[in-house]
């Protein structure tokens, strides 16, 4: 499914995703002096993104193992890079 069409078909789901990322970015900058909280914000937003992806693909009817693995790999990559550079 293409990018724009997906957003147009499920505006509420993508709005929720935007909200999750915006809150995560705001909290990350707000707690810029506290690496302990920043780390939890990254973990929390990654877990929320994963849950969002499960819900999104379940609703879409294409929740397959390959898609779950794809999301997990993107999240693992992000966590490894942030762990090595931000903390």
């Amino acid at each position, binding site marked *: 499914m*293409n990018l724009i069409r997906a957003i147009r078909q499920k505006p509420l789901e993508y709005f929720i995703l935007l909200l999750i990322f915006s809150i995560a970015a705001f909290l990350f900058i707000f707690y810029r*002096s506290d690496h302990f909280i920043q780390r939890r914000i990254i973990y929390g937003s990654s877990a929320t993104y994963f849950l969002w992806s499960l819900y999104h693909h379940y609703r879409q009817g294409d929740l397959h193992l*390959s898609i779950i693995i794809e*999301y997990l790999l993107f999240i693992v990559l992000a966590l490894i*890079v942030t762990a090595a*550079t*931000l903390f």
Partner: protein
Amino acid sequence: MKFIWQLLFFPHEKNNHRALILQPSFIGIFIAIYLFNQSLIKSFTIARPGVLGYSSEITVQKVLDLTNKERQLHNLPPLHFNNTLSLSAADKANDMFSHNYWAHNSPQGKTPWDFFRIEGYQYSVAGENLAKDFYDTESMVTAWMNSPTHKANILNTKYQEIGIGVVNGVLDGVKTTLVVQHFGSPLNGQITSDAPLSDSQVLAEIAPASPALTISPLQISKTVGIIMFGLIIGVLIIDGYLTIKNQTHRLSGSSAGHIGFLAIILLLLLVNRQGTIF
């Protein structure tokens, strides 16, 4: 060869209409490359300690000036510079280098107050701020002011004197500059107002290593991460554009979701400030 590049970056029927770079096996390769890069950096810091590190232009005078500027902005009297407190601050920094730790209390059980006592500073109240890996004094003082506990030390009305240690050395195999602020009020109430030693005097006395320009391991990790994320986001955008154009249907994760997630991580990497405070 051109066809392989095309398969790497563009959706095509030969790559199941998904650029190879975006496929789980290639994301796995990215993870492996990044972990390999990190292990190389770690091995290098063990094999050749002090080659990688953080350069710094922090001076005692600048730390003193900016600390007192913050107090002035909050209508508080300036802190008087005390050389005894500076020696205890430098002792603390040297202790962190020699015992390879980064904390208020040492693994041997030494507290910050032990360093005050060793140098003979009798205090009624005292405090400590720590910072490492900062390049400039402004960013470091801003980081302290953004942290409620460090800010409370800088703006504490009970403190009358300050000592500052700016020491270069090797911590965890990485060359860096540690900055220690020791705050206090003398028990006898007699305030001294010493002139800060010049940095050459301070460094000559306490520095175990020169602050020569070095390659920052954090910068290497950050650059590799930014390149990877930039590349993946770029290919995801191309992928989104071409799937709209070709009206392709396929089984894959949400490109919009991935772009949003990776973009937010990329943004955090780009805006993340230098250095660490404790």
